[in-house]
């Protein structure tokens, strides 16, 4: 069984290593990456199946008993995150056939992409704080590379900001780890969960929780630490933007969930008051920022921020239903957001721009592409019966249950403002007559989206509809996952064994 925990990390690592050798041949590179992504999806599927059947399971690397060695552990949350990573990786890899130029492949695009996926899966599966740091670094280095591989002016500019803020986050993280070890003598998350309540020094615990909150808050693009995201996410090729937007901030969210449901579970102190406020401010600033933008991908980037607010909202309430809402939101958001970025690339392919002012007439000329956009966009905005509606409804219901009426109000209003943004894109890009139709003689510097682009978009859109219609199944899964988070005893037992 332990192979299942290692495969989702080893497979992309191996594919990345082989990709170095075939990078001079773009066709081979793509096939290799596609095969790697396919195998990875199978491995992730098996892991999810196993965890769903038999509950949390762990393995100790090199047979060093926990808490001394490195533990890999999968509960339902980890397993579903790995599964989503695999799905997005597969979609993005297929899409990149058209999107990624020959030159970028020669520079090692697919190596970096595979290493990125390995880093993300490692972060989801590890049960050790320092190992989490190492996976964060793997992920960061790969993302730095992917971001600036094209070496255009805007990429270098966005890259500098992205790198600077992420390095600061890394330093905060490692400082926190050092102090945590000094305080407790362990870095195993399950062990920490038991040891931290025994520490009497409340000030030190609060300081540590704040350090980690700031470090993961930067990664997750929480208010007020999100400015790097809209500066960088629209600069790389579309398929890279898509995998970044789907997965990278979510690793930050995942780390926050682990931190506040496991490591600091017994001792949240003032975080209980701080987190809801941060969540609300993140939602509001994100959606208002999006309203002011006129570039397709920059609108979507700002919406990542407001959506991150929803996920932290669920975490901040600390009830079973709220955490289930966060997990449902993660599933919904990763698929929809990556898909919307991919669609922005399809439209760029059709009309040669991301600027709303230069686009138009897609509904009239390519009605089915309009349908492919319509479903994820209005799922994001929360229209029933699409996936986003259920995700938002669970979170609002959870806020009402604990009498946080203002949070429910903010969540609902931000949902409405999201509709505004999506309507803006719909009206400008799809309904408005194409600005080019007036100049009939203008030779269009554009092409047609290939099957490589459309197949992943169609698949992800179908997945959104399936999640929306089969919401009950996903919800039951999310409730079970939330149950594991609320009562970490099971997790601790899986990691540390039956020594109680």
């Amino acid at each position, binding site marked *: 069984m332990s192979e299942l925990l290692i495969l989702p990390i080893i497979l992309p690592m191996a594919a990345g290593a082989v990709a170095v050798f075939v990078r001079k041949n773009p066709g081979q590179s793509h096939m290799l990456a596609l095969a790697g992504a396919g195998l990875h999806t199978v491995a992730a599927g098996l892991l999810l199946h196993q965890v769903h059947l038999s509950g949390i399971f762990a393995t100790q690397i090199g047979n060093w008993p926990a808490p001394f060695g490195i533990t890999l552990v999968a509960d339902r949350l980890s397993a579903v995150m790995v599964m989503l990573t695999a799905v997005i990786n597969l979609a993005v890899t297929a899409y990149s056939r058209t999107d990624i130029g020959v030159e970028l492949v020669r520079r090692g695009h697919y190596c970096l992409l595979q290493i990125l996926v390995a880093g993300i899966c490692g972060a989801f599966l590890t049960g050790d704080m320092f190992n989490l740091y190492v996976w964060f*670094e793997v992920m960061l280095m790969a993302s730095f590379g992917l971001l*600036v591989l094209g070496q255009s*002016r805007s*990429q270098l500019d966005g890259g500098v900001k992205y790198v600077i803020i992420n390095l*600061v986050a890394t330093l905060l993280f490692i400082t926190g780890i050092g*102090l945590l070890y000094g305080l407790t003598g362990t870095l195993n998350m399950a062990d920490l969960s038991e040891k931290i309540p025994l520490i009497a020094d409340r000030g030190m615990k609060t300081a540590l929780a704040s350090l980690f909150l700031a470090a993961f808050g930067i990664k997750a693009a929480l208010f007020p630490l999100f400015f790097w995201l809209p500066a960088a996410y*629209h600069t790389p090729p579309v398929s890279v933007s898509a995998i970044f937007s789907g997965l990278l901030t979510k690793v930050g969210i995942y780390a926050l969930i682990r931190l506040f449901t496991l490591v600091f579970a017994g001792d949240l102190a003032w975080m209980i008051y701080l987190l809801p406020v941060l969540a609300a401010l993140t939602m509001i600033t994100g959606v208002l920022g999006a309203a002011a933008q006129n570039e397709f991908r920059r609108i979507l980037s700002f919406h990542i921020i407001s959506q991150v607010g929803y996920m932290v909202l669920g975490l901040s309430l600390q009830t079973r239903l709220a955490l289930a809402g966060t997990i449902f939101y993660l599933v919904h958001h990763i698929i929809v957001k990556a898909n919307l970025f991919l669609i922005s690339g399809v439209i760029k392919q059709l009309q040669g721009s991301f600027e709303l002012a230069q686009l138009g007439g897609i509904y009239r000329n390519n009605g089915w592409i309009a349908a492919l956009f319509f479903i994820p966009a209005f799922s994001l905005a929360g229209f029933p019966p699409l996936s986003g509606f259920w995700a938002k409804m669970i979170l609002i219901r959870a806020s009402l249950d604990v009498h946080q009426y203002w949070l429910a109000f903010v969540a609902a209003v931000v949902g409405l403002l999201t509709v505004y943004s999506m309507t803006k894109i719909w009206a400008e890009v799809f309904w408005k007559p194409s600005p080019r139709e007036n100049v009939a003689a203008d030779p269009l510097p554009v092409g047609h989206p290939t099957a490589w682009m459309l197949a992943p978009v169609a698949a992800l859109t179908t997945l959104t509809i399936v999640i929306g219609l089969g919401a009950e199944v996903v919800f039951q899964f999310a409730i079970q996952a939330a149950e594991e988070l609320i009562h970490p005893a099971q997790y601790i037992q899986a990691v540390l064994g039956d020594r109680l």
Partner: protein
Amino acid sequence: MQTLCAVLVGIMAAASIYLMLERNLIRFIFGLVLAGNAVNLLLFTVGRLASQRPPLIPEQAAQLPAPFANALPQALILTAIVIGFALLSFVFVLFYRAYQALGTVDTELMQVAESDADQHSPQTQPMDGGPV
């Protein structure tokens, strides 16, 4: 000794934050190097600086006698140094390329990515030979 190290870490951290708040990227790099070293020193101090003796268990005893330094933080530092070195080399190259492309090291003047003008590099030819 521990107190001295703690104060030193504090001074280094303060100086590095001051440097990192600068708009000049060169100063930011100096701040980053200093901050990385401050954090490594912190990790080192956390593992106790109590003894200069090698961590060997005497023949009759079952465990190390009392004042000994914890070896784990030292292993963590080694990992952190290696990772930090890789990051630093990348940052140097990135900043140099940014300076070449943008003609400045002042972050305030780096507004290309967020300007309204559509700034996209000409893409290279896609793999399947189709139009871009």
